[in-house]
């Protein structure tokens, strides 16, 4: 079965460079959609580009019509949405398909289903995934909130059905706080998302964030590529990801792997996707949401399995069957990723756009660097601050961590502040090395 001749990259920065790398290997010509702010970015040098519009993403990377038209007029028969921007927009996926461009992601229907909180939860239940206890769908009124909260036990979390990014969420620690939390969550949800429907879940504090990488073809074959632990976070923003997950019971892990694979089959999922779960104090993995796209930290699973996830997305999108079964997927050693952002960790992680005067990426055994920057690159102020990902591999967690410390010490980035000092502090801390941390605080880092 043939592959695509030309593939449109509907994204920018690190992921755009990442997708192009696999295209080059497969003999597919990548065409970059770029904003005016990214026209001269190093990763577009010598490449075919289509200028979408101004730097502001609304008129470039977030305009579905501009992107699909650009793909059509350059003769691209496939489009990779990357992550962020329109990667999880069912409307965008549909627009691509209507204009003869293969969207490298799941079918719009599966994306739509998993994009809504309570329908997604309901769809996961039959597959045997553990769920966070809470209301069965959206709440009808305050009285229902009261009775559900009494059943699950306090503290509880009220969440917006159409929410995201931490907005439309309120905690009630006891019954006295419930009415206020319910009212406020609804008001904020209405203001932010135009939808005041909320649902209720038991609040799981001090949990660990674990996720499962999944891969499915169009014929119902689904495999998992192991789990990742993304517990080191700041305001729901992941900082470090690793695999395998420390502190995870083997039986619970294998049970959840199987359930996640079944769930993917049940919803007709295609391509790469991730189940995000919360590991609670009792050691149970509970489903939070599914990300219907490639993730920033996919590299961790690639390093452990030797499987190129972007290549698999392209193959599956072109109609190929998965060329391997679950038994062929070998999860080896330990891999860890640090996200290097152009932010100042000592200034409350203030984003710091500017020009990188000197850039030198580290090299070494078991070290992988994914980046789109080079010396002289200017980090534009319009987009997120990710400039580089460093991934290291080792036989053990300690070896991977030590290699990471060596790599980060060898990375030279002058001109903009980065999160490297924070990463080094975390990696050298006892809390991180001995697993005494959760999503509540960054281990080993006191700003």
């Amino acid at each position, binding site marked *: 079965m043939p592959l695509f001749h030309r593939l449109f990259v509907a994204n920018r920065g690190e992921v755009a460079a990442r997708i192009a790398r696999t295209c080059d290997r497969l003999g597919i010509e990548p065409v970059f959609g770029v904003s*005016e702010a990214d026209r001269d970015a190093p990763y577009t040098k010598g490449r075919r580009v289509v200028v*979408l*519009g101004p730097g502001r993403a609304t008129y470039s990377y977030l305009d579905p019509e501009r992107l*699909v*038209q*650009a793909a059509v007029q350059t003769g691209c028969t496939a489009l990779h949405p990357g992550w962020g921007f329109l990667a999880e927009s069912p409307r965008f996926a549909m*627009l691509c398909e209507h204009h003869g461009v293969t969207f490298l992601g799941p079918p719009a229907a599966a994306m739509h289903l998993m994009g809504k909180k309570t329908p997604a939860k309901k769809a996961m239940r039959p597959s045997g995934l553990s769920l966070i206890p809470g209301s069965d769908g959206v709440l009808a009124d305050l009285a229902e909130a009261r009775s559900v909260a009494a059943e699950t036990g306090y503290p509880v979390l009220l969440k917006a059905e159409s929410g995201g990014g931490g907005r439309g969420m309120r905690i009630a620690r006891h019954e006295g706080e419930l009415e206020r939390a319910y009212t406020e969550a609804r008001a904020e949800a209405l203001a932010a998302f135009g939808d005041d429907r909320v649902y209720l879940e038991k609040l799981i504090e001090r949990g660990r964030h674990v996720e499962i990488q999944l891969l499915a073809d169009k014929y119902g074959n689904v495999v998992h590529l192991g789990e990742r632990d993304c517990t080191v976070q700041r305001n729901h923003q992941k900082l470090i990801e690793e695999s395998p997950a420390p502190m995870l019971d083997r039986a619970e892990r294998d049970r959840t792997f199987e359930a996640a694979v079944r769930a993917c089959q049940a919803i007709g999922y295609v391509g790469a996707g991730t189940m995000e779960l919360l590991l609670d104090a009792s050691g149970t993995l509970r489903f939070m949401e599914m990300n219907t796209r490639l993730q920033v930290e996919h590299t961790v699973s690639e390093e452990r399995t030797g499987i190129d996830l972007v290549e698999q997305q392209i193959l599956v999108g072109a109609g190929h069957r998965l060329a391997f079964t679950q038994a062929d997927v070998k999860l080896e050693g330990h891999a860890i990723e640090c996200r290097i952002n152009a932010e100042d960790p000592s200034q409350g992680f203030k984003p710091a756009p500017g020009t990188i005067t000197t850039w030198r990426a580290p090299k070494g055994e078991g070290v992988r660097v994914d980046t789109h920057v080079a010396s002289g690159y200017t980090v534009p102020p319009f987009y997120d601050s990710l400039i580089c990902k460093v991934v290291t591999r080792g036989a053990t967690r300690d070896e991977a961590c030590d290699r990471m410390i060596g790599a980060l010490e060898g990375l030279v980035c002058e001109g903009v502040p980065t999160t490297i000092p924070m990463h080094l502090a975390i990696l050298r801390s006892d809390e991180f090395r001995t697993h005494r941390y959760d999503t509540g605080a960054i281990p080993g880092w006191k700003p």
Partner: protein
Amino acid sequence: MSVEAKLVAREDGTLALVAPKPAYWREAPKKGAVIVPGASIGRLEVLGGLEPIVAPKTAAGRVIEVFEPKLARRAVDAATVLLVLDPNALGAGAEIAASATSRATEGLVFRAPMSGRLYRKPSPNDPPFVQVGQTIRAGETVGLLEVMKTFNRVTFGGDDLPASAKVKAIVAEDGADLDAGDVILVLEE
């Protein structure tokens, strides 16, 4: 609904009209055509839909360069220069379109801003809008121009006309078919 091209003034004094987004550009003007502010410069095809594209409000000049002039449908993006205009090479036609009035050799005149049939009275039994000897001020009605069954009020004024002037003669007859630029009034300051 129409979209506007972006205007980029270039160092050599020419004006570049740049496409606003990726699209197929159709019905492009030809080299030598005169572009006035707001004039159509073709249509953009985006995902099968067509929308008119117009020159920005500050662009005027004669087309000296057209992007891919031989093609009927050109793939363009937000960096493509569609047309290059020379603002100093305006022909007579452009002057008429850009400004309906001018000082001609015969002195100060007021010209028809567009072609059509001139009516000098609001209705057949009413007195004319303008009579010889009166002083006319900017904004006052000179007459009505019927264009394709539509009556357009023609008001006095123009960049190179005084705010008020005395009407010396009325050249165009009531009911006359005028071309754009034909003299209607001869004036004195």
